[in-house]
């Protein structure tokens, strides 16, 4: 991400010039979360930081991209998978050593979770007239205690996810997701949806 304009790392050719970067560089750039890792420079010394700082939920970006690529084709479905309920994503208070970090970065991290659910609300509105096209799955209990550097807690993540999947409403939603992936029911293109 450069300033507020997201940079898309594509594995295919598009209307934009490809940066010609390597797989590891793209992976490194998308994980350059402030306070965790330093930023990375690719190509013409352009610094990248993780898209979490403004595009934590990339649904809107992906719709724009799909619209550019497949303009005339009807949309099958959009499945969005969250990493834990918004507002409770754990960001610890800065410790003594972290106080050397710029406070605006820490403030920006706090803003991530609200950005995420706002995009979800936008998507619900966007797909209002096209039932069973947009789905969001998000483990909303237990994950708030797990910071993303806590590698030893992978088993906890699995346990919380399994609990979530067992819930009746989630189980029913999953059946609809599978159906939507297998059989495209909507005849609307993204462009048509935008005009409604």
């Amino acid at each position: 991400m450069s300033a507020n304009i997201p940079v898309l790392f594509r594995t295919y050719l598009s209307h934009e010039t490809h940066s010609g970067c390597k797989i590891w560089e793209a992976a490194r750039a998308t994980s350059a979360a402030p306070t965790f890792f330093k930023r990375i420079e690719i190509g013409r010394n352009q610094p990248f930081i993780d898209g979490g700082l403004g595009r934590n939920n990339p649904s809107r970006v992906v719709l724009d991209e799909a619209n550019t690529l497949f303009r005339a084709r009807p949309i099958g479905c959009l499945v969005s998978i969250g990493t834990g309920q918004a507002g409770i994503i754990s960001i610890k208070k800065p410790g003594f050593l972290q106080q050397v970090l710029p406070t605006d970065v820490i403030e920006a991290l706090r803003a991530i979770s609200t950005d995420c659910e706002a995009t979800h609300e936008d998507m619900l509105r966007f797909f209002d007239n096209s039932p069973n096209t947009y789905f969001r799955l998000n483990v909303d209990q237990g994950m708030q205690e797990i910071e993303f550097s806590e590698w030893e807690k992978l088993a906890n993540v699995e346990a919380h996810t399994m609990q979530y999947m067992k819930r009746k409403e989630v189980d029913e939603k999953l059946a609809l997701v599978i159906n939507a992936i297998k059989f495209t029911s909507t005849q609307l293109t993204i462009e048509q949806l935008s005009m409604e």
Partner: protein
Amino acid sequence: MDVDTAITYYGKLVNQVFSSSKLWPRDGRFKATKLEEAIKTVVGDVTSNPEEPLLEIGNSSVCRT
């Protein structure tokens, strides 16, 4: 890469990268070089070239995500 393989690799990667934090956390608490090494290992295992370009030429059967 299928989901189960991805989870296995993720487990290994976070272990390598996050098991020790930097003594003096300037520009981030964890070593970016360790992360880079870990990512390159995964890329190398899957594509047989740690420096593999992101852009796919032709119809490659290997999923990069």
